[in-house]
């Protein structure tokens, strides 16, 4: 059991956005976090990466909480934010080095991985540029390269598909698959449901700060038999309940 979120109540202020949320991500599993804008996906992610502290409940990563040992907890996480976040004054090469330093990676080995990743995402000729001046998609690729440089046990990816070209989307999915094989877990939030349906092992459907349903696609289909076959249909029927 890699990540375990249990009975978390939390949010940015005293008013909770998340109302008693529980789910888990197992080793070698890709879990999709699905929900409307404002459902609480990003808040959940911010709690998991430790930016926010839950009012109630616990978040455990391979037996450690951030309160017990923040170093051991953070060491296991690699994060790809929805909007690329970069150091304005650092070149691409320096971004990679900072990542290596932060996670205390072996220099030569990490650079070998880095060159491979850079080639995949066609960034290998831009090492001395400021990524802050890149296009959104290219910034996103920098984020992906930095995250997959690490040997993290849990990858947290916030809406990765918007702004990436189809080739990069495909490469990212291959990377995720490869890390899954090696036992890493991935928590990914997205609105691109047909991609999610094809690649995620399990889904957590968030609505209004609560976990509406959770499970594999067939489990979801069984729970909502009249909703339809695809994840898209299930998702739409789930939100309709509220609108009616």
């Amino acid at each position, binding site marked *: 059991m890699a990540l375990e979120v249990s009975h978390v109540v939390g949010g940015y202020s005293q008013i909770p956005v998340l109302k008693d949320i529980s789910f888990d991500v197992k080793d070698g599993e890709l879990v999709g976090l699905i929900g409307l804008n404002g459902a609480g996906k990003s808040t959940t992610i911010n709690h998991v990466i430790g*930016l926010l502290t839950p009012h109630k409940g616990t978040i455990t990563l391979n037996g450690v909480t951030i309160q017990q040992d923040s170093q051991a907890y953070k060491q296991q996480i690699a994060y790809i934010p929805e909007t690329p*976040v*970069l*150091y304005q004054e650092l*070149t691409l090469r320096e971004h990679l080095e*900072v990542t*290596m*330093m932060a996670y205390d990676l072996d*220099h030569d080995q990490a650079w070998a991985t880095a060159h491979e990743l850079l080639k995949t995402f066609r960034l290998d000729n831009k090492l001395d540029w400021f990524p802050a001046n890149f296009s959104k998609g290219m910034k996103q690729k920098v984020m992906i390269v930095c995250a997959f440089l690490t040997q993290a046990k849990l990858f947290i990816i916030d809406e990765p598909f918007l702004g990436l070209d189809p080739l990069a989307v495909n490469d990212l999915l291959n990377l995720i698959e490869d890390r899954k094989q090696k036992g890493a877990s991935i928590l990914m939030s997205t609105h691109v449901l047909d991609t999610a349906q094809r690649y995620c092992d399990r889904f957590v459907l968030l609505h209004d700060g609560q976990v509406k349903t959770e499970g594999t696609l067939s489990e979801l289909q069984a729970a909502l038999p009249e909703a339809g076959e695809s994840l898209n249909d299930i998702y739409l029927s789930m939100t309709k309940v509220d609108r009616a």
Partner: protein
Amino acid sequence: MTALFKTRLQRHLREMAKYLRLVFNDFFVFALLFLLGGLGYGYSNMLKTLKSGYWWAPVVALLVLVIVAQIGRFATLIEDADRVFLLPRERAMHAYLVAARRYSQGLAQATQVIAVFLLAPFMSVTMGWTVLSLVELGLAQIILKDALLRLDLASVYQVTGQTRMNRWEFKWLLSLIILAAGLWTLPLVAVVLALILDLAVALWTAQHWQKQQIRWREQIKLEDNRMLGIYRFFNMFTEVPMLAGTIKRRRYLDWLFKTIKPQHDHLYLYLFSRGMVRGSEFSGLVVRLTVIGMLLLYFVRGEWLPVVLVALFIYLIGFQLLPFFQQYDDVVFTHVYPVLPAQRLKSFVTLITLILSVAALLLWVVVVIANPHVLTAGITLLVEVVEVWYLARIYTPQRLARSTENRG
């Protein structure tokens, strides 16, 4: 559209008024009065020593007038979002731009009048010009400035394709020709030439603007630069939040980072050092204060005054650098990376020690050059070492720990 300009102008003036109040505080006004009085006195004394008939007198007048003619930029108050929201109203923008030019006239023309007024006694002494000629010259200067601003307005449109009509070389050349003609022949010639230019640009713009696109991007960039200049000026006196500072690669300074090996515990030193060198906000501050300190100390003689000044400047530099610690707080990875906050503080202390030591050394060298006494040099050095050590190693960590606590 004129209404839009009016609301923007009001907001702009309110903002300027806010800053001007801060700039012209009692102390500064006092200093300024003294400075102006001194300059005026010096100028009138200098005039007494001058006679008529210097060959260089018209050259000086020409230079002053040409430079002054460039002062007073076209303030459009255009904003970045305009290229999206006002794009459908591009034709209506003309009324806005005309209103903007009218507003820009105010400050620009006042500058011209004051400049000619100040130059008048010089010209009447050295060149023997009459009041009438001087008034005519002033008129020429005003019409010229009007034409130059009109040129700026015309250049908002893509009238001449990729090249702008109001490039600085072009404006300087026009001013130079017209004013030289006025100074070496009759001032009335300059008036006529300026009028011809003004009318020509006006006619040309009137004929063309309706069929042309606005250069949104360039115009926004120009306006941003204009505002940046104003904010930079205010920033010398007070804190301006709009001034984020610019970032340059400065590859020639990369050797500075060579000693910082990419190891886990050097992460923030790696980051801070690059941020400091390539960003202009804090490094500019350090350089400015150090240079001012060095200049001041070069002219200061005495046993104790240099010591006090050195101590003051090191304190100022160190104190101003403290907010740099929070520079990366809004980068999420600062919080996500598995790096202990203590490491960040340690790196920051190292950085501050380094910067202050270099500044202290530079100030010390100037003190030694200006005051070749062993005692002063020795005491200054001692005070510097103690102060740098205290500021960087004791004060900084305490202060930053407290501000982190306050943030929760």
